[in-house]
């Protein structure tokens, strides 16, 4: 059961020149109680997707097309028994579709504000600086509780804030401290605690471990996992580090240049990658299972997202690119079917194992060659390979 469903989501940033196409026709789902990981190099649109869920894009960003469906509606759209009122589903003025899911991109600013933190909380990319330096950490958690539950008495909210801090391994008394009295890892864990303050259905964590050293990374990941067990929340974790994701996520989506290149269970994506970009990405991070001799970076840099060429987004850097890759960006194909020899079964919905690549017919060969160092060193033009 999906809690959150991205449907053909395209996001743009207005600039002085042409718009930046930060996300293009993205489809994926986050299931109840599960952790979905979005992975990809920096600049490929992960943060943009995360922010768009709560309408928190920068001022120049906007959703051009598509929807983000969320499996709940505003309280006043429900009956006393908690069901969605029939007239809400039928009336086109409400952004609610037949199965009762609500389009978060269509809510007005007052309504989305009530969804923020109450239903879905977001731990921002640089959460190291996300605590306000002039207020006590505990007060900032209390603030979140009291916005969404104004009927909660002050002292009860303070108790809850302290409980939450204790659960992420921070002593209760430290609630009275200011952010500058916390270490980097503690700040990160305090924000994780804060994210749980209103008992949300879902938490978005943008690069939760980036810029932390390995030991602290582990403690932060432990805190996330423990909170997830305890509160049974769904999570969307965003990271450029595929090895962190391998440990934490149930499903993975691999992004490149504003496009989803591959998605599937973590096991499928890590053990049997079906997209050249995923294979390249794996080579550039130490994996948990096999200790690699050397880390191989994908040559080149991620593309700028203004006016992308009519070809596979990854073609410029892909060692397997041929003429078939040059006409259009590939749609999502069923990777399962590809292993049975049917390499062009389109699968736009986020089920099973999918990959956006025209060359799934030679998937086995690509997997083998991707492990070799020379493959990633060649700088030939795609047409001659």
């Amino acid at each position, binding site marked *: 059961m999906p809690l959150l469903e991205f449907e053909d989501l395209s996001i743009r940033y207005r600039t002085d020149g042409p718009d930046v196409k930060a996300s293009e026709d993205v489809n994926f789902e986050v299931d109840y109680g599960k952790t979905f990981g979005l992975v990809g190099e920096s600049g490929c649109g992960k943060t943009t997707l995360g922010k768009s869920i709560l309408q928190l894009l920068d001022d120049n960003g906007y959703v051009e097309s598509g929807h983000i469906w969320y499996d709940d509606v505003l309280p006043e759209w429900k009956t006393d028994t908690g069901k969605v009122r029939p007239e809400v589903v039928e009336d086109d003025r409400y952004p609610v579709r037949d199965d009762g899911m609500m389009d978060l991109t269509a809510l007005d600013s007052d309504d989305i*504000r009530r969804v923020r933190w109450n239903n879905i*909380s977001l731990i*921002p990319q640089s959460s190291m600086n*996300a605590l306000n330096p002039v207020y006590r950490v505990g007060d900032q958690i209390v603030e979140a509780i009291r916005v969404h539950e104004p009927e909660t008495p002050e002292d009860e909210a303070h108790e809850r804030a302290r409980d939450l801090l204790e659960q992420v391994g921070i002593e209760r008394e430290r609630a009275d401290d200011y952010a500058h009295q916390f270490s980097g890892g503690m700040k990160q864990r305090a924000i994780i605690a804060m994210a749980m303050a209103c008992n949300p259905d879902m938490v978005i964590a943008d690069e939760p471990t980036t810029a932390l050293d390995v030991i602290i990374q582990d403690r932060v990941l432990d805190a996330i996992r423990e909170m997830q067990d305890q509160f049974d929340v769904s999570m969307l974790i965003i990271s450029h580090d595929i090895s962190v994701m391998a440990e934490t996520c149930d499903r993975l989506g691999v992004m490149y240049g504003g496009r989803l290149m591959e998605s599937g269970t973590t096991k499928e994506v890590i053990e049997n990658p079906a997209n050249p970009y995923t294979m390249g990405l794996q080579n550039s991070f130490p994996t948990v299972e096999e200790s690699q001799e050397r880390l191989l970076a994908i040559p080149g840099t991620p593309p700028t997202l203004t006016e992308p060429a009519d070809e596979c987004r990854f073609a410029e850097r892909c060692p397997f690119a041929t003429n078939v890759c040059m006409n259009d960006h590939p749609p999502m194909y069923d990777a399962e079917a590809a292993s049975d020899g049917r390499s062009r079964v389109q699968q736009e919905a986020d089920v099973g194992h999918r990959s956006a690549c025209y060359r799934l017919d030679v998937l086995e060969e690509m997997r083998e060659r991707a492990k070799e160092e020379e493959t990633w060193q060649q700088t030939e033009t795609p047409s001659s390979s």
Partner: protein
Amino acid sequence: MTRISAKYLAQRLIISYLTILVIMTLLFVLLHSMPGSFIQTMQSPDMTGEQIERLKEQWGLNEPLWKQYVDFMVNYQTGEFGWSPHWNVPVWNLIERRLPRTVILFGATTITGFMIGPLVGMYLGWWRGTKRDRSIFTGGLIAYSLPSFWIAWLFIWLFSFELDLLPAKYMRTQFPQEVYGTGFEWTAMMAMRDVLWHLALPLLSLTAIGWVGSMLIMRTVMQNVTEQDYVFLARAKGLSERKVMIKHAARNALIPVATGAIVGIAFILDGAVVIENVFNYPGMGNLILDSVLNNDHPTTQAVFFMLAVLLVICRIIQDIAYTYLDPRIKFGEEES
């Protein structure tokens, strides 16, 4: 909240005291590096050499320089500012009457200026780049760059001559018997109202230039603060835009405003000196001009000194204010 330790306070006070000593020394040096002696301005051509000698003796100018310096330093610290040759009273008597008036005008403007400036700066920084931001910002800059007496004249013309709303001169109604009838007596309430009524136009003129300094700082800092991650988080928490702006953004932006406040305060004090003269408001600024025009050096010197002391006091208040605003400052432990 015992955020400020006695040690921190003592430290600030000692630094302030040293500052005052330095100011006094500078005043002394200034006086003695002026060409000639200020006695020259008091002597008339028909004075005999003996008379001039007596004058010098009287003013202590025959003492060795070091003794003059020590006397000066001791006297100033005990409020002994000497004798005013022009008004023929002790300088302290002049200061005593004039200082409170200036403190009223300058203090009131500082308060209104620092209420209006940061408030406007907050909105402009939040609306950065919009038409509203640009027009108010430009208006503020123009007010800032106009000479203060010019703004005062503009207001006098508008409120006093055109609209006939507010008095343009003095601190009190002169000759109230002529205005209110012969049997007129001031009551405390009426006197206060009368003073406030006379204060309105100088206050307005001074505020017109005094709010801009803090607005400029606030606006710039607000623009930076708006980009901060804690402002993003506040929004993600579901707070209203108003709360995000005031409680999270503006509260942080106030810290640099407080840190740099003394510049704006000095600007207001500077403006007050000019404004007092435009309005014939009998404060220190008015006194400075009179004593300079009449070559009354002891008075001029004492007025400068008192204005400097006023700023040093403001500086102490500022230090206390921003340490309250910023919890990251460790009180009394180290100076940054």
